């Protein structure tokens, strides 16, 4: 197996996730795209862990999974709150903080 095939897969997933964050309006779908990005980073970390024979990549990947779980929890709580107040989770309608 080549090193670059895993890194390339990570790059593809990362770019798809970036496209999703830019293109999507629904807040839940934007959170899903962020999950794609975090998973691509994990694939990269584990590929380098195998390449260098080091356990650091595994540790970082586990930490990223934990942070992603916390992020989804808070993110969906915020989405629920916004939906309750505005009956919509379109990100383009949230303009209160515009200067």
């Amino acid at each position, binding site marked *: *197996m*080549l*090193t*670059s*095939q895993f*890194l*390339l*897969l990570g*790059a*593809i*997933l990362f*770019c*798809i*996730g*970036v*496209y*999703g964050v*830019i*293109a*999507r*309006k*629904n807040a*839940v*779908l934007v959170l*899903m795209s962020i*999950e*794609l990005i975090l*998973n691509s980073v*994990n694939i990269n970390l*584990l590929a380098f*862990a*195998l*390449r260098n*024979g080091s*356990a*650091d990549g*595994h*540790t970082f*990947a*586990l*930490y990223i*999974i*934990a*942070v*992603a*779980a*916390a*992020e*989804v*929890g*808070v993110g*969906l*709580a*915020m*989405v*629920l*709150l916004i*939906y309750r107040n505005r009956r919509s989770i*379109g990100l*383009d309608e949230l303009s209160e903080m515009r200067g």
Partner: protein
Amino acid sequence: MFAAELLVAQNIGFAVIALAMIVGALRVVTTNNVVHAALWLVVVLSGAAAQYVLLAAEFVAITQVLVYIGAVMVLFLFGTMLTRARIGTERDLNNTYWRLGIPVAGVLFAAMAIALASSFGDEQLPKEPRVIGVQEISDQIFGPYLLPFWALSFVLLAAIIGAIVLARKD
């Protein structure tokens, strides 16, 4: 001889799983149905777990299945159910300027592909990788990375309390 066959099998497995992941990821960002997007995301996350097994990271793969497919997807489905009255196809899931994302992602991918090709090229992963067991990972977490572990515990605690406070009705 046997090792060569194993490597071929690994490459075929990688190609099949990677193809499924890419198709799933594309469907996540293009489908018009939020529930379908969540289910396609399950395909991508399962594929990522399989790739972790290919990368000799069994413990991370199991954690991925437990945390992502078990917990995060349930959160997503609950979030979808609680924020939408009906389940089905929706019209306006995309921004008006969604086409802007295509050149951004394309340029980003071109830059990363060029950087990868020039720095790694056709470098092989080690044929006989050092097996990293759970014991070594725990030695890492509770040894040199203990402080980030504590910080992460506080992050999770703050996230739990924050989520309860935000979602509470009063």
